[in-house]
């Protein structure tokens, strides 16, 4: 869905491309044996290779290549059987080698496509240009000493996947959905933990604008290193609006690298085109080309779990879920797996989806809890839904029971038993209560004969007298008979 920016001279559209950096899940770094784990003491996970001591040589970690190939397959992308690591040369204090080992014209993964789900229930395909493998840089810390900068090389050399999209994105919403989809996919296949707060995933955002209907691309700018979906969307809106203003005032856009300042809500120049690095890419002579065969690719393929798109299709086709529920449920691997556990224990899968999507997710959101910390076990939720299905309790009572389960983690049957919430399905008992209500309210009885819609009032009375436990369907049926 193209978002339009209304300018003073007409309508503008945004053209957006994302470069998503995703840290690879692997035991050790891309080119050395140091642990790639997060949270170690500064400079603890650093070998002579990572700190670029004289005579040290890189050796490609096969696991990182495997993860990149798996991710490529999950993105429906072309896998290149031969890829080449290249050096990207620049000086910085947290880049010990003076170059980053990356991939230039021969990446491991080529073109692919991802389908994104949009708010209005529609989907859109975003093209992937490539996925390449590279080393992460270390970290410079500037705020711990008045004159000095500190360097932490723990992250230096950790494997990254850079996933480059085509400029197919047309709105901040699409950009957010695209990023989230990549996040979902890498989390499904365990190639990246996707935790943005740790910097495991971040994005460079390329934005340009053009008048609606214009086929040519405008000059783009790049906002580097954005580390949340909210900021990605904000940066796009801020930057696109800035560009429209400049163009409408007769200005030109400089192709440059910009920094998004979330606090000030602005983007500003980081590096102009003139200051742009000349990275002097060339094939790394310390490494041989990476050559993989069909067997390796097939092994990668076989190791993939059911992917979110496939799962969504299955939920729709097998369980009869709506596209919306399907999309919501598969967006997170753990949510999907929770739902599947619930669904396996009940007959009505759609009812299960409703419960998970509205009741459970609502309660979790309100309590600010992750599905991992959910106090209600999937099996217990399934039991609760079964109690509705076999008429032990009504849907309304079930909500009460659920609230209790969420608080106490007790089993639904226990709560129903303890509180005596079992539904009254005995015709005689319900008839007795109905008779009492009829006897006590002759005026209402007279009115309902004129206006049958008033029957609802009687239902309410009966439910009140049974503390909501009477089977609503039976109450309705019996009342209709008696008040005929």
């Amino acid at each position, binding site marked *: 869905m193209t978002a339009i920016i209304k300018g003073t001279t007409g309508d503008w559209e945004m053209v957006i491309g994302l470069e998503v950096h995703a840290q690879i899940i692997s035991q050790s770094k891309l080119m050395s044996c140091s642990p790639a784990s997060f949270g170690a003491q500064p400079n603890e996970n650093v070998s002579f290779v990572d700190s*670029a*001591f*004289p*005579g*040290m040589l890189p*050796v490609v970690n096969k696991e990182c290549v495997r993860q990149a190939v798996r991710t490529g397959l999950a993105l429906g992308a072309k896998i290149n059987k031969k890829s080449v690591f290249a050096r990207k040369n620049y000086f910085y204090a947290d880049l010990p*080698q003076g170059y980053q080992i990356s991939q230039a014209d021969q990446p491991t993964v080529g073109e692919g496509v991802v389908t994104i789900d949009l708010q209005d229930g529609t989907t859109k395909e975003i093209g992937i240009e490539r996925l390449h493998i590279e080393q992460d840089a270390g970290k410079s810390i500037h705020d711990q000493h008045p004159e000095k900068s500190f360097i932490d090389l723990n992250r230096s050399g950790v494997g990254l996947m850079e996933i480059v999209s085509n400029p197919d994105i047309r709105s901040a919403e699409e950009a957010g959905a695209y990023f989230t989809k990549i996040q979902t996919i890498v989390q499904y296949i365990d190639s990246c933990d996707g935790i943005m707060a740790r910097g495991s995933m971040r994005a460079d955002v390329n934005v340009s604008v053009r008048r609606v209907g214009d086929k040519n691309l405008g000059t783009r700018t790049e906002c580097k290193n954005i580390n949340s979906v909210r900021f990605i969307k904000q940066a796009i809106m801020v930057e696109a609006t800035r560009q429209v203003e400049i163009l409408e005032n007769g200005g030109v856009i400089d192709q440059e690298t910009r920094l998004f300042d979330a606090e000030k809500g602005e983007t500003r120049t980081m590096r102009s085109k003139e200051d742009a690095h000349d990275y002097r890419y*060339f094939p790394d002579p310390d*490494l041989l080309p990476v050559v993989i065969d069909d067997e390796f690719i097939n092994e990668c393929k076989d190791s993939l779990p059911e992917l979110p798109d496939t799962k969504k299709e299955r939920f729709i086709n097998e369980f009869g879920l709506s596209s919306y529920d399907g999309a919501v449920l598969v967006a997170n691997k753990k949510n999907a797996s929770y739902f599947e556990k619930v669904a396996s224990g009940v007959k009505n899968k759609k009812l299960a989806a409703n419960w998970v999507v509205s009741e459970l997710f609502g309660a979790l959101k309100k309590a600010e809890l992750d599905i991992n910390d959910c106090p209600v076990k999937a099996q217990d939720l399934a039991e609760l839904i079964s109690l509705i299905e076999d008429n032990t309790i009504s849907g309304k009572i079930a909500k009460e029971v659920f609230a209790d389960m969420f608080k106490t983690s007790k089993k639904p049957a226990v709560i129903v038993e303890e509180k005596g919430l079992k539904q009254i399905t005995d015709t005689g008992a319900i008839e007795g209560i109905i008779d009492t209500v009829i006897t006590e309210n002759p005026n209402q009885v007279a009115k309902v004969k004129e206006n049958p819609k008033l029957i609802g009032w009687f239902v309410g009375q009966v439910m009140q007298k049974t503390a909501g436990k009477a089977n609503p369907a039976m109450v309705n049926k019996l009342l209709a008979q008696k008040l005929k």
Partner: protein
Amino acid sequence: MTDLTKLTISQATTGLKNKDFSAVELTTSYINQMEKTDNLNAYITKTTDNALSQAKIADNNIASGNMRPMEGMPIAHKDLLCTKGVKTTAGSKMLDNFTPDYESTVSQKLAESGCISLGKLNLDQFAMGSNGQSSFYGGTKNPWGNDLVAGGSSSGSACAVSARSAIASTGTDTGGSIRQPSAFCGVAGIRPTYGRCSRWGVVAYASSLDQVGPIGKDVRDCAIMLSNMSGHDEKDSTSANIPVPDFEAVLTGDVKGLKIGIPKEYYIDDMPQEIAKIWDNGKKMLVEAGAEIVDVSLPHTKYALPAYYIIACAEASSNLSRYDGVRYGHRVSGKELDEMYELTRSEGFGEEVKRRILMGTYVLSAGFYDAYYIKAQKVRRLVANDFKKAFESVDALLTPITPSPAFKIGENQEDPVKMYLNDVFSVTLNMAGLPGMSVPVGLSDSGLPLGLQIIGKAFDEETVLKASYALEKQAKFDATPNI
């Protein structure tokens, strides 16, 4: 007792085995010779105390019958090989204060074979140079004349073997850095096939061309050294996973039926008479030994030298980026990071290193990459193909190794291009990754040693050594410098 430093590795090993002398005696002789020849400036760092304690261990091993293949052999390493706990400078101010906490694979292998290290040998800064004069620690002198260069970049490695201050040495050869100084100093040196020896722990100059190899008193000593330093190393992705033969076993002197190619393109313009003559003599010697001489053509030879300098400098410019003063080595503080880089690198690197970094940066720059780097890579492939084709009809090639004997210190100094021309016979095989050996075969008109080069197929060091040995036997080169 005879001067123990005159013995070759094979002779000294026999002597130790027969208890004619001890490893401590052998090592002491070399330490004395190191002192005596100190003026040649072959060593940057001497580890004599450690060498003596190693020699005692060697004697114990010999006494207990646990003699390793090179037990008690006092060698020395080019100061480009990282040695644990021993300063490793690459001949530069940049690494003047650098002591690695790790040992290069090659020096480790030699130590495990029983070798004793006498110290670290002088070299052109970061192995860049052909005259051994660009070291931060001063130039190396040639044992054959104190006013002469020892060649480069493995200047100390060739000088020490020639001056008998090490029984053998390690060197590295990116464009001729083992073979040229060996020729200038009248000793034998082989550059193995690219991938034969691990580059791990060796300060990198040009990764796709660098290769470690031995320098020895004769071909046999080189064969023994090579057998003990070669082999696959998981830590070097470019090291070849193929078995290492017993190189000494092929030294029979019999080259009957061996086809030796003479590439016509090596008859360069203005080739000095004495070089042409010694080459001609070499052919006759090999024919005498039973080999067959075949004329071959390597048509792209003349493009190899310029293309070599483009590739080597490109890789060097990137390889030397790590010397930034941040984590180790020389540092000059600056107000900002960029200033620190500038000051550190300006002061830490010598002229030749800076020149090559500049050239390398230039040829990799946007707009020049295709015209220089890519073109040079194409030349490289053509050069490699030339060799491949030639080796369809011959087993090895015989060529000169240097265009002249050792020249005077200070000569060619002002003209880098003229200096680079020294490598004209040596760089071609580096471009193709092939093995090549320099063998001393005679003296120049001025009484200086001259060498010839045998070039072989990839991973066929055996034929190179076999032909070189035959050449050596025929040449009967027994001249020694007057020390």
